[in-house]
């Protein structure tokens, strides 16, 4: 609580002012044309600690395999389907290359990090 003396038209008033909360800060307004549109098409090529392989991202069951040895695979191409936590997720290649070996069979249970496919 703070006290102030205010004079209006020669009359003196004593007022008490209580701060009940911080004030809404003023808003800055910009127009849409000033909103920067950001290009974020950055390199998404994966860093590979393990070499030219694709491993299981999590534990689950391999319910489908889409490639065989000798197939050419592009980045972003699904190579197998993994069922985990009641969801069927594609395992997507983060590499481009020729499949050397498929290390799992349909129906196999895999742990996170298990080898799925190796490239030539």
């Amino acid at each position, binding site marked *: 609580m703070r006290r102030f003396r205010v004079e209006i038209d020669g009359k003196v008033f004593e007022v008490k002012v209580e701060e009940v*909360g*911080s004030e*809404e*800060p003023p*808003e*800055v*307004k*910009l*127009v*849409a044309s*000033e*909103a*920067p*549109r*950001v*290009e*974020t098409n*950055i*390199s*998404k*090529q*994966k*860093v590979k*600690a393990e070499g030219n392989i694709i491993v299981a*991202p*999590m*534990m689950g069951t391999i319910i489908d395999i889409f490639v065989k040895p000798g197939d050419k695979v592009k980045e972003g191409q699904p190579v197998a389907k993994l*069922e*985990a*936590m*009641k*969801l*069927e*997720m594609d395992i997507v290649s983060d590499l481009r290359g020729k499949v050397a070996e498929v290390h799992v069979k349909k129906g196999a249970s895999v*742990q*996170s990090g298990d080898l799925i496919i190796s490239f030539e």
Partner: protein
Amino acid sequence: MGAQQGDKIEQLHERRRRAREGGGPKKIESQHKKGKLTARERIDILLDPNTFVELDPFVEHRCNEFGMEKNRLLGDGVVTGYGEVNGRKVAVFSQDFTVIGGSLGEMHAKKICSIMDLAAKTGIPTIGIDDSGGARIQEGLDALSGYGQIFYRNSVYSGVIPQISVVMGPCAGGAVYSPALTDFTFMVEGSGLMFITGPRVIKAVTGEEVSPEQLGGGRVHSQISGNIDFLANDDEQCLKMVRGLLSYLPSNNLDQAPLIDMGDSPDRWDEKLSTIIPENPRRPYDMKDVIIGIMDRGGMMESKAEFAKNIITAFARLNGRAVGIIANQPQFLAGALDVNCSDKASRFIRFCDSFNIPLVNLVDVPGYLPGVEQEYAGIIRHGAKMLYSYSEATVPKITVITRKAYGGSYLAMCSKDLGADLVYAWPTAELAVMGPEGAVDIVSRKELEGLEGEEKMKRRTELIDEYREKFANPYYGSSRLHIDDVIDPRETRIRLIRGFDLLRGKRVSRIKKKHGNMPL
């Protein structure tokens, strides 16, 4: 103007010219050859034209050891000052690799601290551009102490002003802790490098051979370590991204983010939202499609896009106002919560809460990621961070459940219990203490134990269907006030905009304390 005074003014301009030269044309050429811009060119791209005001350009180091007295250059390897980004003030320091390798000595650090102090006093964001060989060894403890003073300021100004680090060159050893302490770190692929111990030390100690890029390049930190938030291809793109990020942020903790009208109607009913959830509950979908359908068109900025992709953390706008989005991504690890995504989400939540940015939580979470690996990695204490950050956050929080919301992970995605102001569910939502299969195996164990073979399987399926019918829907949760309303997916945008409109006046009083003890 007298002749004498004219001379003195002329001398000033001569000094300024020298200071602006940095390490001289040869060093600048070598910087350009590496595909890097100079400290000043970077500032020019970052700031609005002709807004930069330089401070402390005549600072010199005080070291007279190891021949350093002959290697004194104006500015001491860092350019500091303030300027504007889209008309809003920011403070900036930019290390100059052409001056003694951008190495950090006593006075270099003092300049950085000085601009940080000014930024904190005036409530404007700080942007630090790192391009430095590290501590100036010739200055010994004085250089080390300089780092300490910067870390101290990074820490005490955290939550007061947004602090952004931009790593555009080497940043090794102790120097990396300044970016680590700041709110957001950008990195340029190919030139930015961050590690505590470099390849040479690693080779000497452990015998492992690793290139600097493999050890601490931009992709490593954006995909594996999660140390950075944004990765760019080059200096120019990176600085434009920094400008973009600033458009979502207020200048300080007492300010609001700028209002930017993207021209998207607040009453837009989004048809596409009703078709995103697949008919087959076993199929994943891209949660980003949901985000795009809800948010203002033309602007979204995802932080840590390539790290812990099972959760999405992004800035976007709703009717012109910045919001922070935390969303499960069913496409990765089934959207389950794990150690890395808990860290990623918690830090983002706390940033938004510090700076008055409301939270939108989009939930499709099957649970915590099971496995020995996760348990050993400490999912208990890491997962706890999400509970803590959401409970702690007093900004407006609205949760939308699109599909699964099971068990502890449902709480961790900001249920009503953790202080969500409004919780909406789509008709496809399934809220339950656990998935129907698991629940049936527990609650009907006795009954199922008495059966065998096909009969058992059949009964189990029946019980699962019954359970799903009864509990795994949004209406059971709504009857208990865990959900405020079940909404048509197409009206999500409208509901969120109106909700945040209401919540703008939100007030929360908590028991005063020094600070809590967040699990780490």
